[in-house]
């Protein structure tokens, strides 16, 4: 709690500096309003998982890992595989993260990333059917290792990169043979999310740093595939219809940049 207060006070002091630079058309780390920090992706970092990746946006670091299990399908989708996404905001990653059961921030992050990937229909869950009452469950775990702002975009990026990196496990007699694989997981699109904030004025700042997030009045995340919007989530604040439509344009532009970076890891 103490750190959260410190964070807020520091953010308000920096807010003045921030606003002075915003008037000049840049942000205090020198970026343009619609510019991401340096994005880096590294795949296959966890050998015990079927797929994995670390995505870095600036200093923000998120590890994503994919594991498979044989599970019982949902009653209303008896032939479909099950996808379960979980996000951990590790207490080491930020002075504002606390140990304990998942809070609303980590639940929201997991659900937004899940929604973007699921809605994009980038993996065919029907191909995960094994036999009646048995399907493959795909677990996507997201570990936020350092939070310098915008862990949502880093998490989606890491998640999609980990899926690209995923090898399908060999299944024999309704059991996964660990360590044996049957080619890559097929993916038909590349969902990413683009988060942005509004501070006072009516323009969007893409990929906010932690200080910017702390003073943001409106927080918005938009998931895109090559052609469609696949998820949206507004955090705090409000926005007009025009602002939302502008945000969608920005999300497609920056999303396509992120997809180019994803292409390099394939």
């Amino acid at each position, binding site marked *: 709690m103490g750190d959260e207060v410190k964070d807020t006070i520091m953010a308000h002091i920096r807010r003045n500096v921030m606003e002075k630079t915003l008037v000049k058309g840049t942000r205090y780390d020198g970026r343009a309003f619609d510019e991401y920090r340096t994005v880096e992706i590294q795949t296959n970092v966890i050998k015990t998982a079927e797929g994995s990746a670390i995505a870095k946006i600036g200093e923000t670091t998120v590890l994503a890992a994919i594991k498979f299990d044989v599970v019982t399908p949902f009653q209303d989708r008896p*032939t479909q595989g099950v996808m379960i996404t979980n996000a951990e905001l590790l207490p080491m990653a930020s002075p504002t993260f606390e140990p304990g059961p998942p809070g*609303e921030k980590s*639940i*929201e992050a997991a659900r937004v990333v899940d929604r973007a990937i699921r809605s994009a229909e980038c993996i065919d869950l029907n191909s995960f059917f094994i036999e009646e009452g048995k399907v493959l469950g795909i677990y996507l775990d997201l570990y936020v290792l350092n939070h310098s702002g915008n862990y949502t975009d880093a998490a989606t990026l890491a998640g999609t990169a980990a899926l690209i990196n995923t090898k399908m496990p060999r299944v024999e007699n309704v059991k996964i043979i660990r360590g044996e694989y049957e080619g890559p997981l097929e993916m038909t699109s590349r969902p990413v999310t683009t988060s942005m904030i509004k501070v006072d004025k009516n323009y969007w700042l893409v990929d906010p740093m932690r200080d910017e997030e702390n003073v943001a009045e409106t927080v918005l995340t938009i998931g895109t595939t090559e052609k469609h*919007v*696949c998820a949206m989530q507004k955090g705090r604040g*409000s926005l007009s219809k025009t602002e939302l439509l502008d945000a969608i344009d920005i999300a497609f532009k920056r999303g396509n940049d992120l997809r180019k970076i994803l292409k390099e890891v394939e």
Partner: protein
Amino acid sequence: MTEWVISLGGTKDVQLIIDGKRTDGRTLDELRAIRIEAGVIPEADGSSYIEWGNNKIVCGVYGPRECIPRHGASPYGATLKCRYMMSPFSSLEEHSRSGPSRRSNELSKVIREALENVLLLGKFPNTQIEIYIDVLQADGGTRTASLTAAAVALANAGIPMKDMVAAVAVGKASETLVVDLNKPEDNLGQSDMPIAMSHRDKNLLLVQMDGLLTKEEISRMLDMVEKSCDEIHEVQADALRRIYKTEQKEPFRW
């Protein structure tokens, strides 16, 4: 009469719209019947009950009152707390586990973040305002119905607000844009976009979306939301007007 067979499992092949009519006979931009009552829980500072199609949701508001735990208090204004929960008997399927779920945690957060925009929280430093929402019977669209009810309960509690909020989901089912998704459309449709809008300045206070949509579709859907939210606002205003009527009132029936 068309026989509606809702097959679960495949989502692509289900016809949800035939000749411009939906599974429950509504047109594309028609809302389900909405009934709102204010002041249904006498002990609460403010309360409301909403029947929205087959949804039945009750909402109670307490505060501003002392913030517990104390370290959660803010000198800048009241801390808004919101708890949305589904009762274990609220769906036609099996008895679900009671208590919060990952879904209800997220919905509590987005409902709170929608209402924070219209409440004058700055007037009540170091206090808390609590919103309790319990879904008794669910039939698709509970988050938007809950938000609509919560706005009425907050007004009923006399908490100063700069605007009223109404919410509705728009979505895409069988390649067609429809307002106020019912359960089959929610489960089997292609896309779902719940939106909350402030009444006077038409700001978007809750924005969520899943499924695949283009920018043009989203733009058209936002226009549909605006029209529907105006209709919902009328029902909300009427509920609030009725509790201050002096003549003989009908007793409230659940």
